[in-house]
């Protein structure tokens, strides 16, 4: 399963959410699908994306918060999972792209060689840790269909949940991000000043048919 395909599957659902991503590959790939002001890319502090998400979720209980995390970052703040679990914000979805490596520092190379693997490569089970930390719901998914179903359920659902998506350790096509960190830092809270619309009103009648190409214009132009 590729991270970019997972991101494409949920991209249309992220409108009106507060989205907080980690640095590097995850940020660049979400950006490549089309930047929005409600996306905040945490460009350095490993582990704190979920803490920022928690702060938003507690401050704006009426808004969905989506944290897009990585295995290495989560491993640096395992205690944060316990804090999330005990706070149990109903409006927070914690997506973890587990590529079993510290990819963004060059921890993966062409051919799938991983030069700095994380402990998830030797059996550490992040969904198991999240469950044991007290998350009401946490699961591991390995296939795109399962990811899409789990992610959409989590986004529609009314409880804290964690999805660990096992993905290939593949670099994004480009790391180009034409939005400065500080520009992003100031546009993001502005976007959060807009009251979120009802999710039911946003929901498209059916989920994206998997065979159909996605229709996000920004995505087409950027992928070429």
């Amino acid at each position, binding site marked *: 399963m590729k991270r970019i395909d997972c991101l494409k599957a949920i991209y249309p659902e992220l409108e009106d959410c507060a989205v907080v991503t980690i640095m590097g590959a995850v940020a660049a790939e979400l950006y490549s699908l089309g930047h929005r002001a409600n996306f905040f890319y945490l460009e350095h502090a490993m582990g704190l994306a979920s803490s*920022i998400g928690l702060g938003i979720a507690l401050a704006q209980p009426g808004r969905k918060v989506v944290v897009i995390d990585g295995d290495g970052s989560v491993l640096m703040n395992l205690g944060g999972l316990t804090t999330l679990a005990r706070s149990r914000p109903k409006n927070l979805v914690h997506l973890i792209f587990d590529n079993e490596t510290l990819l963004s520092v060059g921890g993966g190379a062409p051919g799938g060689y991983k030069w700095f693997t994380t402990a998830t490569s030797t059996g550490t089970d992040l969904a198991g840790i999240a469950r044991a930390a007290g998350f009401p719901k946490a699961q591991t998914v390995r296939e795109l269909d399962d990811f899409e179903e789990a992610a959409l359920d989590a986004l529609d659902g009314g409880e804290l949940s964690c999805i660990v998506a096992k993905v290939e350790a593949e670099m994004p096509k480009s790391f180009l991000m034409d939005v400065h960190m500080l520009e992003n830092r100031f546009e993001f809270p502005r976007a959060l000043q807009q009251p979120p619309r009802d999710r039911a009103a946003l929901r498209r009648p059916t989920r994206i048919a998997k065979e159909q190409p996605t229709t996000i214009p920004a995505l087409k132009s950027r992928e070429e």
Partner: protein
Amino acid sequence: MPVSVANSQLVYDAMKGVGVTLVSALPETWLVHLIRMADEDPDMTLVRLAKEEEGVGISAGAHFAGVKSAMLMQNHGFLQAINGIVGVSLLYKIPLLMLITDRGGFGEKDPWQTEGGKHTRPVLDALHIAHDDLTRPDDVQPTMAKAMTLAQSSLSPVALLLNRDLMWEEPR
């Protein structure tokens, strides 16, 4: 317990007075009353942390979402949070009000507190984080107000060091 209830209340009221509605905390003895007050206050959200660095992220998220917050911790909690302070608050220019119980100064009886206390101010200074001591009850409210004003206008972390003279009542 000789932690001052009256002065803890002063600090708590001053914090609420500057608009704080979310507090993240990891305690030590001197924070016992402040944390209880936050816990018992229906208008305050209290987040009990596993590690202080998380609080920096939580405060940043709260700021993004339009809520004023504060962190309660001791010297070693501040030292524990440094990477978050540098990589989130300073790098992204985010206001952060840190209330640090200042152990390890004159009068400290616990040997294990004496090192962290010694390094807190030099580290704050090295990071160019504005800080002041809260020592006298009369100063608590005005200093808290000025600290919050500076945090918000400079989009930076600020620290208030809660001193022994304010927090601890030596048993007679």
